[in-house]
């Protein structure tokens, strides 16, 4: 990993956490996972995935485990979508984000039920829709910035 690449990822994580401060209930770091999957470098996933899992579990309020399902579902949906679309296709990312919005709702509801927690379902629904709408434009902006800052980062 080049110094520019490392600096980009560090900046991404910091800005992602700040974005989550502004948008409660939204996962901004999943954008990084999607970009890493699109670039297809397994070594990057080996450090990025545990890092964002620990960050999200640390700032979350559910018992450890929901983030594993959330990012596991993201990876599974990504590889399923790869059979049908080009990974940098905007339609692919749009469909992926729509599925992730639904997954966000289902996982939060299921994990809260497992822990005997009552969730405000209306608020959860709003956050799931916002999560689905948040991913495509943010992914596009992050990808453009990455291409300019780290030109040698090639997608699949």
């Amino acid at each position: 990993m080049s110094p520019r690449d490392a600096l980009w990822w560090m900046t991404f994580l910091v800005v992602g956490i700040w974005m989550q401060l502004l948008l409660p209930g939204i996962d901004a770091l999943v954008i990084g996972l999607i970009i890493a999957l699109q670039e297809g470098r397994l070594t990057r996933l080996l450090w990025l995935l545990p890092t964002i899992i620990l960050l999200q579990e640390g700032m979350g309020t559910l018992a450890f485990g929901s983030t594993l399902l959330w990012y596991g579902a993201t990876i599974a949906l990504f590889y399923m979508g790869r059979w049908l679309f080009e990974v940098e296709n905007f339609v692919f990312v749009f469909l992926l984000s729509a599925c992730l919005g639904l997954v966000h709702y289902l996982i939060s509801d299921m994990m809260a039920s497992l822990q005997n927690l009552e969730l405000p379902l209306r608020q959860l629904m709003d956050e799931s829709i916002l999560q689905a709408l948040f991913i495509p434009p943010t992914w596009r902006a992050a990808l453009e910035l990455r291409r300019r800052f780290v030109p040698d980062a090639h997608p699949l």
Partner: protein
Amino acid sequence: MTPKRVILLLVPILFLYLGLYSWNQRTGTLDRLADNTGLEVVGAVLRPALWAHDRVVTFWDHYINLVGVREDHDRLKAQLEVTSRQLAQYAEDRAELSRLRQLLTLAPPDDWQAVGARVLASRLGPQGVLDTITIDHGYFTGAAPGTPVATHLGVVGRVLRSGPHTASVLLLVDSGSRVSVISHDNRTQGVLVGGGPGNPLEVRYVAVNAKLDEGEILVTSGLDGAFPKGLPVARVITVTPPDLSMFQGVLAAPLVDFESLEEVLLMQRPPARYALQQAPVHASNGTAQPQTQPAPATQARKPR
């Protein structure tokens, strides 16, 4: 990859996940790992952002946005006069309370200490499903899980999870929150339960014949052992007589505005309870002199 292979791959992953989840539910190891790493890093990342935000807001408020400062000054000056008079009255009441306690040989409430902490954020991340705030204190700095959190207006909640220097606080309004309360005037007891975002709090187990007035302040009863006694918590909004139940339906509103929280107080339980302080009462002015040294432990310790 064939469907059969996918299933063969998914089954061991599912079993591995369930095993990991159950093991963590039993031991809490992964939760502690996440608190000590993820939560701590998030706190470190948020502090500079909060600092920059504060500097900008302070500069704007102190040097640019000065509209209404004169009016504020006059209003605060008048308020200070009223408060000074009230303070003098309260000092007299406090001295009288000390004398009466000595007469009745009652131990004073535990001398809980308050430690200030700053609010870093509200709910964070996709798994932040509970109504919480993140503060810049952790278990090294007085915010162990279970620590009561309050402001000068009233109770905020309790520390839910904590890393070394960052912690999450479960707010009073969360539906999982429970606080044992007593009404200030009528001394009616109940359990205050959070109603979720945007909903009023509910006071449960208020007996059908217990007296409780609308507008009455609820304070912590201290019976749950989690909060010091006497902290204001909420104000009663409605009291509804029951149809069939043995308990009244009571709704209350929190005294603290959770949307505008910036600083909170962490209530620190004293290390040991002290015996009744034998403060001498000066007959001339009626004020009690506080005793700074605790009584010897052999005499002082009381059963918890």
